[in-house]
């Protein structure tokens, strides 16, 4: 029996495929299925051809597949590429007189919509029809429709319900597809990677979010704005990426935690702030959403291309930590880790997100706030009442200078973008310089001990090792599973802490491995370069993808098998 069904809905921007995708996902979730849904946009403007792929399953779904079980076109335009991906026994749904032939199901969607009152109901009719195909309970949509259409009034709600029912009747009695028994999961949310990060932001006690309102940051701004209605939070649509990080640094100087979100070349406008964080030792957490570059590139697509630039951008030398979450769950856990490390060490921490993970919708149990260790202030309440002297850049044996906040005591807090003495005053003295550089460098040593080792997946005694990072985690795991089913001895090493990497903690995996494969969603094998720099590791094969689309198990396997030929 099938474990998952992949539905691809394509349409022209403005036809509301995002709305229908949302409603469908919610409905399937309520009916107890696992959900995994990704968008493929060519443009953010209402107008271009966009598509959404919703996978529903009876087990957790963690990655996108290329194959399509149900292909639906709202514009009746089907790309050849998509048609070729429809599996044996799959279904193609188009608008037209009702007919079912050679796997193509035409339904009078527009006609029925007009019959329900307006062409606009076409989405709802389709939703009903899909529910019918899956034999879901049509009444289960009542609640979600209520929420969706509440603002528009009871009439709109009723009309939509009716339209859904009309669609439902078209398909409920026929068995177009193999039946998929729901898993009956409960208490799950449908969230994107971005959502996970926002929950962790708020969970960590962070009270400010600054972002230039770029398209991919919309979700961060919108969700954080919702929180700000009930919590003391400021969510600022900043006038530029540079202003976003310096506002964040200003807030952080006062002791309020801060998150900054940027994407593509917007990252370049942050680097001044990163270097400043390095010098001033004001902590900051930044989420960088990657899309294909250079420059503006393809802002609606995905890539893993800011690894080396995240590590090395900024003038001069300073400690930083970089995480690249691989799953929705890790978006949550690495974000609160980011706040912890950033606050403890007074450094900038980057969450290197990929567009695909930022926007993919998935079901997940609600996060548990108890998992979060909220970072502590460096001075306890008691210490605050006792402290008599304060030096912002006090030289200590950990390199960490405890942070006091302006207004917290009677002692002034002095912070500088110039090199400074321990008091925070500008200095160009050679000896003071050496002390402060050494102090800052000292932090790097302790940070190295907090390295989160990569996850190993596969057989202990492997011949072939796949190495990957970030959002390709589950895709590579799937590849390992598939190759193991072919009796290959395969393992995978999946990184989420990208910098610094502790070479001692990874050496053992590479020592006697016969064939090491690097898998990256970029064109220059950035991670392979990094591992060579850090651990002298040489790869036998690079599997790279840089056409704007995410890695898939099929893509990796094809490239792997081509190379092994």
């Amino acid at each position, binding site marked *: 029996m099938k474990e998952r069904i992949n539905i691809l809905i394509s349409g022209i921007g403005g036809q509301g495929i995002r709305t229908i995708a949302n409603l469908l996902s919610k409905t399937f979730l*309520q009916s107890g299925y696992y959900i995994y849904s990704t968008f493929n946009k060519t443009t953010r403007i209402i107008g271009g051809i966009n598509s959404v792929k919703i996978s529903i399953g009876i087990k957790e779904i963690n990655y996108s597949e290329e194959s399509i079980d149900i292909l639906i076109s709202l514009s009746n335009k089907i790309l050849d590429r998509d048609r070729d991906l429809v599996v044996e026994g799959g279904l193609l749904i188009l608008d037209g007189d009702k007919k079912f032939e050679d796997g193509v199901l035409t339904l009078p969607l527009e006609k029925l919509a007009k019959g329900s009152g307006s062409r606009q109901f076409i989405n709802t009719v389709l939703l009903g029809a899909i529910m019918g195909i899956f034999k879901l309970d049509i009444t289960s949509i009542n*609640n*979600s429709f209520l929420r969706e259409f509440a603002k528009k009034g009871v009439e709109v709600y009723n009309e939509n319900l009716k339209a859904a029912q009309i669609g439902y009747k078209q398909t409920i009695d026929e068995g177009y597809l193999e039946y998929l028994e729901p898993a009956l999961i409960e*208490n*799950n*949310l449908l969230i994107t990677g971005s959502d996970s990060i926002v*929950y962790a932001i*708020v*969970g960590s*006690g962070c*009270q*400010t979010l*600054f972002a230039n309102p770029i398209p991919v940051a919309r979700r961060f701004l919108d969700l954080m704005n919702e*929180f*700000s209605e*009930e*919590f*003391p*939070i*400021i969510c*600022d649509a*900043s*006038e530029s990426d*540079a*202003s*976003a*990080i*310096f*506002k964040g*640094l*200003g*807030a*952080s*100087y*006062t*002791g*309020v935690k*801060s998150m900054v979100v940027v994407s593509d070349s917007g990252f370049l406008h942050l680097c001044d*702030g990163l270097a*400043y964080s390095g010098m*001033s030792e004001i902590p900051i957490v930044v989420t960088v959403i990657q899309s294909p570059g250079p420059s503006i590139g393809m802002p609606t697509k995905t890539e893993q291309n800011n690894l080396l630039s995240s590590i090395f951008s900024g003038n001069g030398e300073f400690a930083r930590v970089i995480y690249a979450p691989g799953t929705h769950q890790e978006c949550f856990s690495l974000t609160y880790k980011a706040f912890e490390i950033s606050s403890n060490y007074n450094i900038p921490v980057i969450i290197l997100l990929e567009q695909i993970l930022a926007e993919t919708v998935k079901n997940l149990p*609600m996060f548990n*706030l108890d998992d979060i260790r909220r970072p502590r202030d460096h001075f306890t309440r008691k210490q605050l009442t006792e402290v008599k002297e304060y030096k912002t850049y006090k030289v200590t044996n950990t390199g960490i200078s405890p942070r006091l*906040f*302006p*207004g917290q*005591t*009677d*002692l*002034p*807090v*002095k*912070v*500088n*973008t*110039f090199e400074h003495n321990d*008091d925070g*005053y*500008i*200095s160009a003295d050679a000896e003071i310089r050496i002390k402060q550089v050494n102090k800052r460098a000292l932090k790097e040593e302790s940070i190295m001990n907090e390295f989160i080792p990569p996850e190993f997946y596969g057989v202990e005694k492997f011949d072939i090792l796949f190495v990957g990072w970030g959002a390709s985690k589950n895709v590579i795991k799937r590849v390992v599973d598939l190759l193991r089913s072919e009796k290959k001895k395969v393992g995978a090493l999946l990184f989420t802490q990208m910098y610094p990497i502790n070479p001692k903690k990874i050496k053992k995996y590479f020592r006697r491995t016969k064939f090491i494969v690097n898998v990256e969603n970029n064109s220059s094998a950035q991670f392979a370069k990094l591992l060579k720099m850090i651990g002298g590791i040489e790869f036998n094969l690079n599997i790279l993808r840089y056409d704007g689309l995410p890695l898939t198990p099929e893509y990796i396997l094809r490239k792997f098998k081509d190379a092994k030929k």
Partner: protein
Amino acid sequence: MDELNLNSGPSWCGSCPNYPFLTSFKEAIEKLHFFVKDFVCVMGVGNSAQLSHYLDCNFINVPPGQAFSAATGIRMANHDLNVIVISGDGDLLSTGINSFIHSARKNINITVLVQNNLVLCSSQGYPSPTTPVEFQNKFQNCNLFEPVSIIKIALASGASYVARGAVARSDHLEELIIKGIKHKGFSVIEIIQPCSQVFDFGTIMEITDQFQNIDDENSEPDNLPKAYAIAVDKTRIPIGLFFRSIQSTFRSKFPLMIDDSLISQGISRKKLDAYFQKLLKP
């Protein structure tokens, strides 16, 4: 005031107008009865940034042009702090002008003191965007461009308190600074203080002679067209309050922040738990 003390050796020329500025500034702080707890100085990079050498108070030096953003972030997070930006003419009219405009429009309650020495002192006296045409010549062959008016930009940005003072009019300057800091909203005070190395004594006197106090003629300074009319008047250098209006500040738009600041509230774990649970409701 004891809190503001000379820290390290002097870094300005002996005759630098920054010294009288510093005196006026300290006097203002003293008259405001501010303690260390009460205020933060935000500075960029430039001669004015070296001001931090002379301050024993909360301060933060940021890269060129970023002072307005940093100040905005500080004020958003902790509105119990009076936030005072001390910027230079070059610093203001560079990268940072974007944030200046947006913080002004949002009426963030901060005070911007612009030390306009009419040059980029820290670039060894290179012309700044405010250098009068007749002096640009000294450096740049024939590229003689109209100086930018800080007052006009401030007015156009929607700043709710716009004034000009001069170190040569110290009592008046002090008063403008005090009023500016007390003003509830975004306040800008341009301070004319020609660099004493680049401009000779005669030139500085010539400039000083053109000062004209507008406080009487503009006694109800809530008239924007009038403020502009004064600002474009090239027959003199108007000194005083160009514009002031009582508008709702940034904070007043956030019901949850009207009384207590972000930092004094924090995010309640319990409330958040409840909120998270609520999200699960279908």
